[in-house]
């Protein structure tokens, strides 16, 4: 057996190293290391409750709004108020822009460039992939960045800027939308839709959302060979990406995109082909393999974050969140399964969660959310309020704020003492996905997904495809 420490993993958000035990051409064990610790849970302590809105977005430059949404949800409970419908719609719009931008950044900037690498130059698709998806230089990159920047104009208009807005408040949003502004927002969204339909999908978004089986997906791929999504599907066929990166097939999600009619995507746990309710009390954090004080499972509402850089068992700054003692995977695929999307349920029933199904879940979500954004924009009642005033003092001392970031379930567990933050624990999506082993020795989802992978070399691209298929955000992971 040989042991290799791989890193720095780039084209992921934040810092990541992975230790692989390699025997007989196979990965026998993987240990995932989050090597950077900043300590936001401590930076928040002692501050006024509302100050969380200025601190938490700065946990992460790529999931900044998601962090704000989780804090705003917790503060809504603490202050006993809820946003009016306009406030909720604008929050959804801002959050959707971030999530869509993240999905596109992942696909075009982080994930696809690996297929343009010289390792694949014998493949019949390599020359075209090199031309289109080569890191920084591929012909797909500049048009995507232009479309992304145009979509980001939503942030300038509705949120002041991105990242790190303060516009999301417990009672709604700080920006009202005028009729003229809505016209501009609709223009930008139409342009962005045109980009997606022309370059990413080659089809109307509704046609992508209507793909309801693996057979339908294969048909789409054959009919639209030049679309970027189809290029990926073609490569995935060729490299059998559906056989790579299967983990526990236990998926977890919070509710996403709330409205008066309920959430677009429900909270829940998906396992063995069925969905179950999400029981928050079953969530624990285990610090056994973390360079942090603590060992066995601890409830996030009562846990602390105390660094111990010399802890002998430690190999990551990340904690290990568990659901009733089990590791769980979160992300766009989890959301899609819990919504009961036929295509994703079909794919997971055949091959579980894997490199292919994670990427398909992300892109098909983009196709579904843009039409939702159009509805939210049209649904704004411009003469109505966008925010309710926040009371002077909190009415509760403890609250949990949950949301879905692009990468999955994000939770903030907040306790106040005399109006100030006395405890603030955060479990981010990649804390779930890239957790280290817990006190029972149970590997985290990526660690599990890497076990048994056959590769010519520990640095082989198969390993990298699996890692990047989760779209990790390491700055959120340890925060």
């Amino acid at each position, binding site marked *: 057996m040989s042991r290799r*420490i791989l890193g720095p993993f780039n084209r992921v958000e934040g810092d990541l190293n992975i230790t692989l035990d390699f025997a007989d051409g196979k990965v026998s064990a993987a240990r995932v290391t989050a090597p950077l610790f900043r300590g936001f849970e401590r930076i928040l302590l002692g501050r006024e409750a509302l100050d969380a809105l200025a601190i938490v977005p*700065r946990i992460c430059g790529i999931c900044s709004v998601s962090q704000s949404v989780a804090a705003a949800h917790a503060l809504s409970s603490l202050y006993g108020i809820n946003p009016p419908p306009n406030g909720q719609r604008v929050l959804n719009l801002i959050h959707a822009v971030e999530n869509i931008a993240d999905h596109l950044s992942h696909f075009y900037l982080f994930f696809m460039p690996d297929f343009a690498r010289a390792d694949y130059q014998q493949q019949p698709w390599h020359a075209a992939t090199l031309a289109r998806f080569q890191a920084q230089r591929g012909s797909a990159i500049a048009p995507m960045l232009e479309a992304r920047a145009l979509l*980001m104009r939503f942030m300038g208009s509705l949120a002041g800027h991105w990242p*790190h807005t303060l516009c999301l408040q417990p009672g709604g949003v700080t920006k009202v939308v005028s009729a003229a502004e809505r016209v501009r927002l609709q223009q930008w969204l139409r342009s962005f839709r045109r980009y997606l339909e022309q370059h990413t999908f080659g089809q109307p978004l509704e046609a992508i959302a209507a793909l309801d089986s693996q057979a339908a997906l294969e048909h789409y791929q054959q009919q639209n060979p030049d679309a970027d999504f189809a290029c990926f599907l073609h490569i995935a066929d060729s490299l059998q990406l559906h056989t790579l990166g299967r983990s526990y097939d236990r998926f977890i999600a919070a509710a996403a995109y709330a409205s008066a009619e309920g959430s677009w995507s429900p909270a829940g746990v998906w396992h063995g082909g069925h969905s179950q309710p999400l029981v928050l009390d079953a969530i624990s954090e285990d610090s056994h393999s973390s360079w942090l004080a603590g060992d066995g499972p601890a409830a996030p509402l009562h846990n602390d974050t105390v660094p111990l850089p010399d802890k002998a068992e430690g190999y990551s700054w990340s904690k290990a969140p568990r659901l009733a003692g089990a590791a769980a995977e979160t992300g766009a695929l989890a959301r899609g399964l819990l919504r009961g999307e036929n295509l994703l349920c079909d794919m997971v029933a055949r091959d579980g969660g894997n490199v292919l199904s994670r990427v398909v879940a992300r892109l098909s979500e983009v196709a579904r959310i843009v039409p939702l954004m159009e509805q939210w924009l049209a649904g704004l009642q411009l003469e109505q309020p966008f925010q309710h005033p926040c009371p002077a003092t909190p009415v509760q001392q403890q609250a949990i704020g949950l949301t879905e970031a692009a990468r999955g379930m994000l939770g903030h567990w907040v306790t106040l003492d005399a109006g100030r933050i006395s405890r603030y624990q955060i479990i981010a999506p990649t804390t779930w996905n890239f957790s280290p082993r817990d006190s029972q020795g149970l590997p985290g989802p990526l660690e599990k997904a890497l076990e048994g992978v056959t590769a010519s070399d520990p640095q082989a691209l198969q390993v990298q495809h699996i890692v990047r298929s989760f779209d990790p955000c390491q*700055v959120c992971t340890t925060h």
Partner: protein
Amino acid sequence: MAWKNKRLLWLQSGGCGGCTLSLLNTEAPSLFTTLADIGIELIWHPSFAEQSLDEAMQLLQRLADGSEPLDMLCLEGAVMTGAAGRFHLLPDGQSMSTLIEQLARRAGQVIAVGTCAAYGGISAAGDNLTGATGLNHSGNHPGGLLGADFHAAGGLPVVNISGCPTHPGWVLETLALLASDSLQAADLDPLGRPRFYADKLVHHGCDKNEFYEFKASATAPGQMGCLMEHVGCKGTQAHADCNSRGWNGEGSCLTGGYPCINCTAPDFADPGHGFFSTPQVAGFPVGLPTDMPKAWFVALSTLSKSATPARVRQNAVQDRIIVPPSLPKKNKA
């Protein structure tokens, strides 16, 4: 103008990656096209580079030992110096702070991107048990990782593009000036910030200027009035051109309806009061414009408050215009 291709290495340490993500918002042309246009070759960036793992590590080592030249080093995020560097380790067990220092002493120009890399920023807030610091400053004090007398091989001290996040224009215009050797020490303010944006105040061009003039104040974020008196806004003290160049097209904190928190300042993350409230003494804000005599401010604001038009006073506490400006008599119905 000497214009030659410069080799730029971008590293991240104790930060959120938001300055990179903000950089991606640059419009017309997009990021990689702009870098090529201004004569910069991005030799490695953790989010964008093709090379990963061993290839990346080997490249970093060649740059650190000088066997490959390095014209420009950008660091995003604070340097984590606590616990002998254990808060940020490279895969080989070396601390990131050691590598950053080696590279900074090789590079022709060293650029701190964002308030964390410049001064420690939010990563150094609170009890700072991670020992987060800036490259050339620790908070307001010169020093940081590299020491107060540091000058890069090209002669400049660290260029501090502070901001949390940085505007893509601040970064790309600084890089363009550096790439063409057009940025001199005199172009930096005493905190090392490029004067082209740091000699302006967020107050300049603020949407709310009429409310400021008449001291017609909002009482909560989201109201139209000036946010300085009650809601924590530091736009009159904050060095940046946020309201004279738009963010994401047309935005700024103030157009978004919330206060400026002075994120280009070294210690913005520990203001000593709530971010959404203004400490006051005898009914006047503690944090006044830095170069205005306090007595004059008090006198002028008392006077202007007494002259506030009813329209401005009423609109100040609304989320939209309730009372429009009146028209000349000749245009009235």
